[in-house]
């Protein structure tokens, strides 16, 4: 009997799951705020002002929040996009994994670097 190879998918599924929690509990409201309410002027000017955002990003918890929202949402989305390719009849291939997970990995690093470049103030 040929041995079945263990897949690495648990790693990406874990990230997908964590991201799914973030998307479910944060994104509907966050999208409303940043993408609809603020551009339409329904919120105070200071809500997403440069100074306020710099203050949030200077705070360690602020950095963590921004990092989690951006990075985990990407890991979640990218994993689902990978699976959706299969839903459309495209066979799962490693190049798809390298492309998609590589993309989210690069974006995660970029996000981390950007947040670390910004000053820290408790």
């Amino acid at each position, binding site marked *: 009997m040929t041995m079945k190879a263990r897949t690495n998918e648990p790693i990406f599924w874990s990230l997908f*799951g964590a991201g*799914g929690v973030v*998307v*479910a*509990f*944060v*994104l*509907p*409201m*966050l*999208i*409303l*705020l*940043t*993408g*609809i*309410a*603020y*551009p*339409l002027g329904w*919120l*105070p000017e*200071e*809500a*997403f002002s*440069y100074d*306020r*955002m*710099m203050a949030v*990003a200077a705070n360690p918890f602020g950095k963590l929040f*921004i990092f989690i*929202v*951006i990075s985990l*949402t*990407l890991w*979640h*989305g*990218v*994993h*689902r*996009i990978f*699976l*959706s390719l299969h*839903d459309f*009849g495209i066979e799962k291939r490693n190049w798809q994994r390298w492309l998609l997970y590589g993309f989210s990995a690069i*974006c995660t690093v*970029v*996000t981390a670097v*950007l*947040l670390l*470049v*910004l000053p820290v103030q408790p």
Partner: protein
Amino acid sequence: MSAPNSYVRPMKGWWLKHPFYLKYMIRESSALFVTVYALILLRGLWCLVEGPDAYAGWLEALTNPGLIAFHFLAMLLAAYHTGTWFAVSPKVVPHIYIGESRIPDAFITRIQYVIAIVCYLVLLVLVAGV
């Protein structure tokens, strides 16, 4: 052991053949939208690091009607994801017992809605209550 001359029906268009499948595909389509949204946020973070002018440019770009329309659709799909995520999460965990009685799946779904609404309100107050 397979039957010779058996007929294999094609899978093309499978998700159009039943409403359950169509709803699944709509659920999965939310992934593309939230990915793009995360990239929009990443762009915002990039502009924030570049400086006040760049960041102002990002805020300005968000007022584009096409982008607002995108966010509206993304918000609807994210909300749909939320609903389906809560409905489906009891399937991902072992049965939970308090003593001898099992906690019903519906409870697990409903309690997440409660927590979600609290999270949304907290976020709203933090952002809007400047």
